[in-house]
């Protein structure tokens, strides 16, 4: 069986399903953010040592979505659909959805993260990407 690797290991765990997101939290003001960064808190200005890595469960609700017909990104063909998901833990994030055309989606539905195969890299490893899909319940 081919080895699999997450496309963006800094942003999510690629080995478990459902995957969790790697976020950050500020000790000083409690601000929770995604994607993770170690430069300083953009809400209160606390320095890097006040920022801690936190795991954000990939659950939330769909805020809005748009089906993209034209883009410059690599590794994906149009059309595909991008959603804004308001995570249960706070931050609003953007993700590609498993639903390519957006058919049947509407704002407010529960969403959960999932890991999908996005083809192979040059070394023949299966590249896994995080997507969001309608939650089972």
């Amino acid at each position, binding site marked *: 069986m081919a080895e699999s690797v997450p496309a*963006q290991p*800094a*942003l*999510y765990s690629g080995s478990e399903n459902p995957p969790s997101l790697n976020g950050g939290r500020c000790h000083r003001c409690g*601000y929770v953010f995604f*994607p993770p*960064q170690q*430069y300083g808190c*953009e*809400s209160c200005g606390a320095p890097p040592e006040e920022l801690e890595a936190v795991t954000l469960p990939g659950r939330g609700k769909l*805020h*809005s*979505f*748009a*089906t*993209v*017909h*034209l*883009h*410059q*990104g*690599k590794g*994906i063909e149009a059309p*595909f659909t*991008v959603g*804004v998901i*308001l995570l249960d833990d*706070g931050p*609003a*994030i*953007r*993700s*590609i959805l498993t639903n390519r055309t957006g058919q049947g989606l*509407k*704002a407010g539905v529960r969403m959960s993260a999932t890991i999908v195969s996005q083809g192979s890299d040059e070394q023949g490893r299966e590249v896994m990407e*995080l997507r969001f899909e309608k939650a089972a319940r």
Partner: protein
Amino acid sequence: MSKTLIDLRPVYVVGIGLHRYQRLSETTYVDLGLTAVRAALADAKIQWSEVEAAYTGTAFIGMAASRPMLRHLGATGIPMAQVENASASGSTAFRQACLEVASGISDVALAVGVDKPGPIAGAPGKTNIRDLVGARVLPFTHFALLANDYMNRNHVTAEQIALVAVKNNRNGARNPYAQRQKQVTLEEVMAGPAISGALTRLQCCPVGEGAAAVIVASEDAIARLEIDRNRAVRAVASVTRTERVYREAKNFDAELTGETVAQAYREASMTARDLDVLELHDAFTIEELLYLEAMGLCAPGEGARMIESGAADIGGQCAVSASGGLLAMGHPIGPTGVGQIAELTRQLRGEAGDRQQPNARVGLAHMVGVGAVCVVHILRKD
């Protein structure tokens, strides 16, 4: 104690000039810029030797664009600098020219915007902070997501949003400097091609090349150089802000615009009701609706209905993007914010020809740049 523009000595726009916004061509940026600056000097009826400082708004040309261009007007040795603030580069160059004169450091200053599309990468992509979507979400998808949210919340259709493009192309068809000079029907806008979400091609601004120039002057200079006082338009507010952290998936573009415009109204002692003409950042149709609401020109959720009612047409309550806006006049980046000031000046002088808003006295210019900045100016004809 901090001060606002109105607390300093009065500053007036006395000259405007443009090079048409157009698709990328062989024309050099020097030709584009000089065309605009020479037109602005002729409009003000002053010589280049009277200009004491120059700010060049540009994002894509490259390092040190000012002198290689402006030396051909005569190398007078004046201070020059490039101003880069993404889409708000030209607006920021105009602000610097206003502050230069209002502070008393110069009597006459130039703000020129010039650009040609180019391959320069933006700095936000160099922070090494990656998100899940990267280049798969370009600006049009950012605004398509806002359009989707707007339609859900306000029970507005894609056609109602597209009407912004119909209006702005109608205005652009009357503007000889516009990149798009063709009137379009709602059917033509909706026919596509589809770009992202509800946005079709004609709902996204063209990014081409062009130039715009504005000369500002103090009252002393107007008297000394015998500049026509009746054609001078005063800048009464210059405000720029940057985005803060807005929680809970708030629409940060609209929040930032609301904050910045509110501050400009306060500084100029005005309200939305005072505006006769408005040039706003309509790079995508949905933006016009969001910003009209954020600026208080209509109630929240009423932007689409304001457009349908004709209140934003030339001849309506406030002519919005009478130039054609970014959607029709075009968005060459560096020139865009300066071109807005030129259009407002033309309108407030009563020189806008067949796109003239009747009895225009107060105008507001608004630009947003990635990163994210917002720049707002209010002009008034005394």
